[in-house]
């Protein structure tokens, strides 16, 4: 039977903690459905399944840390005969299961106020009689939460990752915290209040305290784990990849004045930041210099037709994730901007998908917001190049023999000498520069 295993969400991950199941035995799942939330050294990630079928058994309890590749659940492929339901190890507080009924599928009698088959399956799996459940959804429909409540299980509390980290670090039991965020989401502030910790904590870091043995991952451990994961990957990069670096200064005035005009006409929600133009130019240039776009695998370069741009995103409270903007070269700057906003929002809200954390063919790091002018990056294996942009600064700049003040950005490229040479790197930055002089063309 196919197994759903702990996925590898990037080359720097070798184990993960199952945080919660989003499915229950008996649920129908389709390719791309989120089935679980997994905590890595870096963040909580929603992981999808890659097959259509029926969830058979969940093999790992929430809170368990297992190596990448460990089976987490078994899934009956779509079309296969459904196996005999096994007695399920339900939590002790679950309502007593009803007598097995002769009718195999209760669906026909299920009241019409149950909107989703998933809810029906969940109720079936948990032995909840839907006729006795009060629906709190629209039109008194029965929701998942209602079913959870009927089993005595707490409805899933939504918790921001920062709050989760803070709670782990301060020993606050999240089940006892009242969320004050949207739809009852538990926020850092709620955890602080619950922990009666001094509210003034501008930096996330709760000081390393005595480790509490009963907690799976205190904040200090999380930081240690993250630093170790980054350390392992970057050490591998520095050990294995013969980096070379090239750099150039790009006049951003055409791009910025074009953006300024555009943004005057666009609704605020669709305003485009310079970062989107830098990403688009980086992706287009990669198509011109294919030896920078792809992966170094088994002592050989495997170029990629598509350009999936990894974007380094700093998390509020520390740390870094690099989800991928798929097919960045084919998207308009507006579209890239929307995608970037969405990715950053979810990276910081703990809602990134597993599929977004893999597959990048080239990474861009834009440190302009941090106030530095130049970033000389370290390549993410197995990628073969990393593009860096610093802050846009106004500087004296000579054009056609005349001195003027221009907004400039320093672009750098760190590239793998096994896959390309300095000449290729230079052509790449030249292409980025040229593309940014003609922003309409992006």
């Amino acid at each position, binding site marked *: 039977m196919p197994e759903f295993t702990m996925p590898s969400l990037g080359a720097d991950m070798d184990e993960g903690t199952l945080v919660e199941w989003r499915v229950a035995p008996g649920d129908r799942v389709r390719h791309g459905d989120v089935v679980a939330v997994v905590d890595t050294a870096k963040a909580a990630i929603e992981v999808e399944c890659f097959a259509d079928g029926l969830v058979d058994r969940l093999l790992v309890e929430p809170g368990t840390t297992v190596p990448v590749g460990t089976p987490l659940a078994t899934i009956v492929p779509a079309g296969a005969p459904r196996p005999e339901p096994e007695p399920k190890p339900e939590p002790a507080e679950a309502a007593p299961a009803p007598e097995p009924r002769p009718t195999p599928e209760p669906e026909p009698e299920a009241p019409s106020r149950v909107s989703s088959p998933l809810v029906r399956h969940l109720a079936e799996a948990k032995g909840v009689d839907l006729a006795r459940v009060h629906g709190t959804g629209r039109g008194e429909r029965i929701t998942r939460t209602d079913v959870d409540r009927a089993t005595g299980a707490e409805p899933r509390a939504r918790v*921001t990752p*920062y*709050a989760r980290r803070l709670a782990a670090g301060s020993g606050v039991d999240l089940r006892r915290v009242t969320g004050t*965020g949207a739809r009852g*989401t538990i*926020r*850092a*502030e709620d955890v*602080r209040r619950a922990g009666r910790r001094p*509210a*003034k*904590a*501008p930096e*996330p870091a709760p000081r390393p305290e005595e480790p509490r043995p009963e907690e799976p991952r205190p904040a200090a451990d999380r930081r240690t784990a993250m630093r170790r994961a980054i350390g392992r990957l970057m050490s591998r990069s520095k050990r294995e990849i013969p980096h070379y670096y090239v750099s150039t200064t790009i006049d951003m005035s055409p791009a910025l004045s074009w953006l*300024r005009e555009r*943004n*005057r006409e666009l609704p*605020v*929600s669709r*305003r485009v*930041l310079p*970062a989107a133009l830098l990403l688009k130019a980086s992706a287009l240039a990669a198509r011109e210099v294919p030896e920078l776009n792809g992966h170094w695998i088994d002592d050989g370069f495997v170029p990629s037709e598509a350009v999936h741009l990894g974007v380094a995103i*700093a998390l*509020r*409270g520390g740390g870094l994730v690099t989800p991928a903007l798929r097919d960045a070269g084919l998207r308009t700057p507006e579209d890239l901007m929307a995608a*970037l*906003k969405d990715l*950053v*929002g979810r990276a910081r*809200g703990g809602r990134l998908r597993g599929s977004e954390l893999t597959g990048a063919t080239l990474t861009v790091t834009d440190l*302009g*917001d941090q106030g530095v002018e130049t970033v000389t990056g370290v390549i993410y294996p197995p990628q073969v190049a990393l593009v860096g942009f610093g802050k846009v600064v106004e500087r004296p700049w000579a054009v056609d023999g005349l001195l003027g003040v221009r907004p400039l950005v320093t672009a750098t490229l760190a590239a793998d000498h096994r896959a390309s040479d300095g000449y290729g790197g230079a052509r790449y930055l030249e292409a980025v520069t040229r593309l940014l002089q003609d922003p309409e063309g992006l």
Partner: protein
Amino acid sequence: MTPSETRELVTGALQEVAPDLGPADLADDGASLRDDLRLDSLDFLNFVEALGDRTGLRIEEDDYPRLATVGDCVAYLAGDRRTPPGEPPPENR
């Protein structure tokens, strides 16, 4: 809108874009959105959007420098409210 309502509107919008900010972080009018509250350009764009949603006001990019601190934002919104159309908003710094 009273000054305290305006302030609440600003801090509410800030908490929407940066949910980890607590009342203590936002208590100081002089807190810089960029340096103290660690908003990056994307957070700031979301903040401007959130302010627009709450006030119906379209904040142009040219006005961004006037939104450097929490106090700036309150003054900006208050000032804009009092300004008749067609006249430049009063200087707030």
